[in-house]
């Protein structure tokens, strides 16, 4: 393999980074008046990047041909699946942002560029084959995300969200780095394949500490209990389009990265990390469900909902099989659609003065003021709860199926029982919208772009989404196999 082949493998990353730099200069010289054209160009770039990862996704590319730069970067089918989700959610977050920020008079040309760089970082995360590549991708994503969280810099809550995210993100990076240094110290390598080989036999206590610290750092990034506490504050404080982004692209990347690190680098020590993953999964499901009950802010509620959903995703990882990895990917795909749909629906709710409505009591009786939005939001809530006619049920089904086939029947049963707790607050939102006295707060018209996204996600989440189960399952299976789990 020569450098030409390597560069072909990182072509999507090259495209995004070069266009990010060019658009940065355009933003500096033309100014904020070019914010909309730059957003459209950035979305186009991500669209082209989708086509670039397409072949690897459909072929389920695997093997040594997908390793670039001596195994530091892997452009395999697994990475392609995650990247496709990341790029698509990046496009969605670019579509919803201009209308939101322009109404607040805060649209800046830097927003699409920060999204591009963050997406670039997440793409590197899912493709990493080495602890150093992992860290570079994670930091590239995080540094852009810290700025995005405090994008409404004159708003106290947004500034607070940015600061909290920065401090806790830095702490998480520190924990991760400490774990990585321990792993390097006890195995003598940072390459995933070589770490796997070095951990074939018994695990030394030092390496065990390294493994746990790495998992704790990753748990911070995916917001799994007990490292979830930053999520509600950051999700509530950040501007809604940014929250949509946090709940989709970086979440997909961090989960995919956790799967790759667990199954590849630590794949032969599954007994050591499985109990941690099982604990984090059950604790996330229960705490995400209980924490959401008392919330009166819709964005906080969705933050707890994302903690809850990460728990279900981790059940798929706990299975530790290619089937489990495939279930995680299927769940992620459905989860991203549901999340984007719910946040777009919230974004479309404004009161008479044009302020954004976030409180649950303000959407009382929404079914009479805005019947279509209320219907779709109700569908999203039922889907997040995993009720059968909606597509969200399928994600939970494949995850539990993988757990049962890996002989984790007790875990699956506990997960199913705990998902009932979560159904309570999802149904509460539906009840408030359809059966309570109208609050009459929500008024005004919504942008066409928002409608397109809302209806698009609603169709996928609706029972029509089941038409996708076979192609989605096929692609996810191929992607999971390309992780090369053979010992």
């Amino acid at each position, binding site marked *: 393999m020569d*450098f030409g082949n390597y560069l072909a493998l990182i072509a999507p990353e090259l495209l995004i980074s070069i266009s990010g*730099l060019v658009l*940065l*200069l355009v*933003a*500096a*010289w033309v100014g904020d008046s070019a914010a909309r054209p730059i957003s459209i160009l950035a979305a186009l770039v991500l669209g082209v990047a989708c086509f670039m990862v397409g072949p690897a996704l459909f072929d389920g590319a695997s093997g040594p041909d997908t390793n670039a730069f001596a195994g530091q970067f892997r452009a395999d089918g697994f990475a392609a699946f995650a990247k496709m989700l990341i790029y698509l959610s990046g496009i969605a977050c670019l579509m919803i942002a201009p209308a939101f920020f322009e109404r607040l008079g805060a649209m800046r040309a830097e927003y699409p560029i920060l999204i591009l760089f963050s997406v670039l970082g997440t793409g590197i995360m899912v493709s990493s084959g080495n602890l150093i590549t992992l860290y570079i991708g994670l930091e590239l994503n995080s540094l852009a995300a810290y700025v995005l969280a405090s994008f409404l810099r004159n708003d*106290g809550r947004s500034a607070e969200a940015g600061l909290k995210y920065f401090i806790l993100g830095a*702490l998480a990076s520190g*924990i991760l780095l400490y774990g990585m240094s321990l792993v390097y110290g006890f195995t003598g390598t940072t390459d995933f394949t070589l770490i796997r080989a070095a951990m074939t036999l018994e695990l030394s206590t030092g390496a*065990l*500490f390294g*493994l*746990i*610290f790495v*998992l*704790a750092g990753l748990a911070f990034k995916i917001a799994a209990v*007990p*490292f979830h506490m930053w999520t509600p504050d950051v999700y509530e404080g950040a501007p809604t389009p940014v929250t949509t982004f946090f709940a989709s692209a970086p979440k997909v990347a961090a989960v995919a990265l956790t799967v790759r690190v667990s199954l590849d680098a630590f794949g032969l020590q599954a*007994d*050591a*990390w499985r*109990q*941690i993953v099982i*604990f984090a999964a059950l604790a996330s499901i229960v705490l995400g469900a209980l924490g959401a009950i008392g919330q009166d802010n819709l964005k906080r509620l969705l933050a707890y909902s994302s903690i809850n959903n990460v728990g279900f995703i981790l059940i798929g990882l706990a299975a530790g099989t290619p089937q489990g990895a495939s279930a995680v990917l299927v769940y992620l795909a459905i989860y991203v659609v549901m999340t984007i749909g719910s946040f777009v629906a919230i974004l479309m709710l404004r009161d008479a003065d044009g302020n954004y409505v976030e409180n649950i009591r303000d959407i009382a009786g929404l079914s009479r003021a805005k019947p279509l939005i209320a219907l779709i939001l109700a569908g999203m809530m039922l889907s997040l709860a995993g009720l059968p006619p909606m597509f969200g049920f399928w994600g939970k089904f494949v995850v539990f199926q993988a757990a049962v086939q890996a002989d984790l029947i007790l875990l699956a049963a506990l997960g199913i029982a705990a998902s009932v707790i979560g159904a309570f607050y999802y149904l509460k939102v539906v009840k408030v919208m359809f059966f309570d006295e109208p609050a009459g707060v929500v008024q005004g018209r919504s942008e066409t772009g928002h409608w397109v996204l809302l209806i698009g996600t609603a169709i996928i989440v609706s029972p029509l989404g089941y038409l996708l189960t076979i192609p989605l399952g096929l692609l996810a299976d191929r992607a999971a196999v390309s992780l090369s789990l053979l010992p």
Partner: protein
Amino acid sequence: MVDLSQYLPILIFLGIALALSCLFVFLPMGVSRLTGSHNPTAEKLSEYECGFPAFEDPRSQFDVNFYLIAILFIIFDLEAAFLFPWAVSLDLTGWPGWITMMIFLFELIVGFAYAWKKGALEWE
């Protein structure tokens, strides 16, 4: 008797979580005892060198220029720190090493041009 040693990983994991949450609670309490607010004297509360007043409303807006200059300094200082090992090992890394560093410098120049155009280098 169940072999409890197999649950060591989860014990360590929960230990990390507990230690971190204790840190969040007790570290600010401990640090605040060391600062001027706990045992104030005129010297502790006075301004240090050319800095800001020690205690004021944290939400007030302040001149961001100090920070811009400091951040830009760090970036270009680190660039220099990268250049020295690169220069002495160029015979080992060869053309790929040279091209990589040129790409890195180009990216920094793009950022520098952005900062310049945005007026980050002008004091007023």
